[in-house]
């Protein structure tokens, strides 16, 4: 048995009195804890924590890790997530003590190395995006979007224009776009896409008015399609005095091919954890730098990285800044990885990366359209969307295809959006996958296509070869067990005869 079937929590392992890491807690001063902190400031409720040896802890987590799919073990064509290879030299750099062991308040002169990384990363992002200035504070894409909304607001406010409370987003947009606007108390208006999955110019015109603060757009959009009318769109929006926000989650399609700044976008965020190869870490951390055109620079969060002579430093003049978006400066370890990636790839390498990402996606699209329906069958950019709405009569949903893929050691494509496509499978191979991997994927999809006809149950019951079958998500939400204490409570209730949950 290679993968342990033990699903006990750390809390359920170990033994009372067993020790993992111990410290030499002998006090340096003459007094003990109770002399230092009065009783009423002390914790009463005892901490329920595991008591495990270091070996037990290591085995626990190593075995947990072995239950995961990941880029380094599996093909992971999760659309919109750009699951490209995370180069190992990035990890080496980010783990280097010369960068990890630096305190954020050491002062600029004591941090010239990392400051240079901040500064140069900004220059590279400017080059890639065509924007004029960046803040590297935002910690993820959604954080960048929120920053963007604040910038939009600050700009209109600065011009005395406070009617603009409306944010337009296409119905194909990622959930964070409307959510970010709403978090900032903006009013969200969703634009219906046209039959070719793009922004419908008439629909846009119909909703654009002098209460419109901004249009948020992903380009290529979440169907992997480039907005051909982009120049017309940005012109229309600008004419109405609104701004344009670019969700850069799909920038991996465009490096060196086209720039949001040139398209007319005013604000851009870039996901370093997508386009610039930093790892997803099981959900984070990421980094979502926000770039703007010159006229918005005064509003950017402070501090900003700058270089005077040979010296790198932070500029803290408040200007008309919207203020700070997080403590300190940014996710330095992620920014450092992105810097390493950009230096390794170089300009020509980045262009090639996008070209190959687009080529890989189109190749898959061409191969798979013989088996499944492509939502919008045109040349795509870095990703494309299949629809399996035809299989609904057999009760098979897109999610089921995803589950079945797991059996073959392939991660499921994105299935929870874009909402504009029924039963969507959003597939993004990225440029770091070899043609052989794509061909293998096509073969597996072909087999699944046959199974849909021959043996739908095989798909509906999938996955068959993983540590668990499908979890009961309804039960999880109806009776949330979210911590070890919840579990203990549930067990107590069960012992008292209450209906059982896990």
């Amino acid at each position, binding site marked *: 048995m290679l993968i342990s079937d033990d699903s006990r929590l750390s809390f359920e392992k170990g033994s009372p009195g067993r020790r993992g890491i111990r410290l030499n807690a002998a*006090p340096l001063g003459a007094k003990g804890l109770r002399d230092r902190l009065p009783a009423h400031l002390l914790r009463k409720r005892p901490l329920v924590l595991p008591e495990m040896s270091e070996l037990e802890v290591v085995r626990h987590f190593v075995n947990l890790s072995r239950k995961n799919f990941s880029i380094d073990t599996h093909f992971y064509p999760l659309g919109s997530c750009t699951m490209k290879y995370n180069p190992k030299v990035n990890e080496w750099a980010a783990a280097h003590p010369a960068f990890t062991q630096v305190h954020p308040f050491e002062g600029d002169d004591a941090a010239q190395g990392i400051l240079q990384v901040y500064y140069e990363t900004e220059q590279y992002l400017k080059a890639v995006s065509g924007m004029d200035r960046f803040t590297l504070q935002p910690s993820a894409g959604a954080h960048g979007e929120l920053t963007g909304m604040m910038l939009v607001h600050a700009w209109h406010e600065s011009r005395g224009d406070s009617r603009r409370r409306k944010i337009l987003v296409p119905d194909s947009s990622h959930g964070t776009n409307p959510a970010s606007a709403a978090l900032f108390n903006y009013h969200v208006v969703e634009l219906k896409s046209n039959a070719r999955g793009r922004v419908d110019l008439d629909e846009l015109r119909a909703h654009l008015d002098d209460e419109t603060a901004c249009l948020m757009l992903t380009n290529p959009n979440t169907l992997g399609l480039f907005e051909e009318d982009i120049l017309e769109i940005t012109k229309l929006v600008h004419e109405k005095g609104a701004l344009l926000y670019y969700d850069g989650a799909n920038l991996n399609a465009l490096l060196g091919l086209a720039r949001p700044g040139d398209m007319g976008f005013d604000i851009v965020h870039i996901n370093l954890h997508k386009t610039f190869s930093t790892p997803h870490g099981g959900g984070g951390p990421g980094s979502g730098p926000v770039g703007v055109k010159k006229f918005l620079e005064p509003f950017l969060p402070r501090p900003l990285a700058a270089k005077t002579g040979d010296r790198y430093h932070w500029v803290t003049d408040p200007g008309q800044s919207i203020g700070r978006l997080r403590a300190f400066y940014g996710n330095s370890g992620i920014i450092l990885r992105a810097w390493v990636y950009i230096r390794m790839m170089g300009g020509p390498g980045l262009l090639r990366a996008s070209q190959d990402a687009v080529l890989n996606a189109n190749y898959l699209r061409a191969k798979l359209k013989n088996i499944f329906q492509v939502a919008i069958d045109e040349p795509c950019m870095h990703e494309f969307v299949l629809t399996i709405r035809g299989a609904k009569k057999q009760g098979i949903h897109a999610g089921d295809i995803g589950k079945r893929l797991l059996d073959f050691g392939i991660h499921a494509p994105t299935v929870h959006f874009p909402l504009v496509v029924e039963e969507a499978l959003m597939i993004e191979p990225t440029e770091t996958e070899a043609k052989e991997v794509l061909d293998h994927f096509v073969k597996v999809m072909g087999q699944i296509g046959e199974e849909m006809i021959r043996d739908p149950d095989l798909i509906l019951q999938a996955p068959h070869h993983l540590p668990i079958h499908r979890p009961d998500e309804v039960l999880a939400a109806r009776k949330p067990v979210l911590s070890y204490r919840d579990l203990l409570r549930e067990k107590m209730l069960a012992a008292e005869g209450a209906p059982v949950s896990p």
Partner: protein
Amino acid sequence: MSYLPLTENDRRDMFETLGISSFEELVRSIPASLRGVKLDIPEGLSELELQALLERLGRKNLTTRDCLSFLGGGSYDHFIPAAVSQIISRNEFYTAYTPYQPEASQGTLQAIFEYQSFMTELTGLDVSNASHYDGATSLAEAALLALRQTDRATVLVARSVHPHYREVLNTYLKGTPFRAVEVATLADGRLDRADFESKLGPQTACAVVQSPNFFGVIEDLDGMSDRLHAAGSLLVMVCHPLALAVMKSPGEWGADLAVGEGQPLGIPMNYGGPYLGYFSAARSLIRRMPGRLAGMTLDSEGRRAFCLTLQAREQHIRRERAASNICTNQALCALAACVYMTLLGKEGVREAAEMNVDRAHTLREKIAGVKGFSVGTNLPVFNEFVVRSSKPFAEVDKKLRAANILPGIDLGAFYPELRDHFLVCATETKTAQDLDRFVEALKQC
């Protein structure tokens, strides 16, 4: 051009499959006027060159290996067991995405569940999310939650909350109908309860108190939550998580929300990030909680299984009606904290916390005896405290740096009234020799 597996042959074959003769045919939907980009980015380096370059840059950073640092103030030099980085460097952990496919992500999901368990233990609250960006943004989201939950407009924030956190909160509220009102600090660093009473009003959604606060002081919040709850408001606490191993917990103080910076739990200082915003709440607030939650359930064969749950709060389901916009969080940092807590375990966590209390108080006593310096207060602290210098702090700082010591954070930069005060932090990493060396150097000032 590393990392690109397509060979010229591959490209040729793929072109053929696609029936195209040039890449350009694939990107015809890009208007011609947008093309012809010249990327102003230097040629790629080999890894050999990159490694050498990075070593060179690294030498331009001063690390806490190279000097004796007493810097704290929201980023702490704590001991990290070697096992932490070795575990979180498992390829299957760090190169996985958010665990949307539970069958293929039981490792990440169970680890998040355990992380949530640790944070609820420490905070004494009922639920914890899977992480937020950092302590500051976690606080901002907590305030937004309180505003929504109470349907009120004001957030009371102690002046002794980390200045960056207050700035971030203000940023989040700017342009909204909501605002933050500052509650004063007493001269000894404690929350000014009278000022709090005077500002508490019918529009108060919550009060935000940090403990240990930015000046290091552990707050006595006796009666605070009763007062707030009676007024229909919530109590939000910001805490150093390791302090909670010995300090009365937010749950015990009656807090509704506890947020803060999880960096002390096994995460390096990293020049300020990536860190770990933790976010815990009372059960009643669960449906408004931002961020991901891992839950325990059963699979179709009745086996224990983990999955993301209550996703109806989240942006990918609810879009503009979501509890928050957060998507990518700080999962790997949460894993580090989870591993750290598991490794130290019940006793180790307590030992680590006690050592901080010991080091800080011991050092404060020593510095109190140095001519030219005085300590603001003798109130209990966790691992940092305020020192006042009779000379300009800039001079002290310069002299100590020359002796390879970073004496602390200039408080005058954040609080005009605290010119020539500095914040000194001593964690469990400091030895008796370290403290003596520091005190000797101060004596030379």
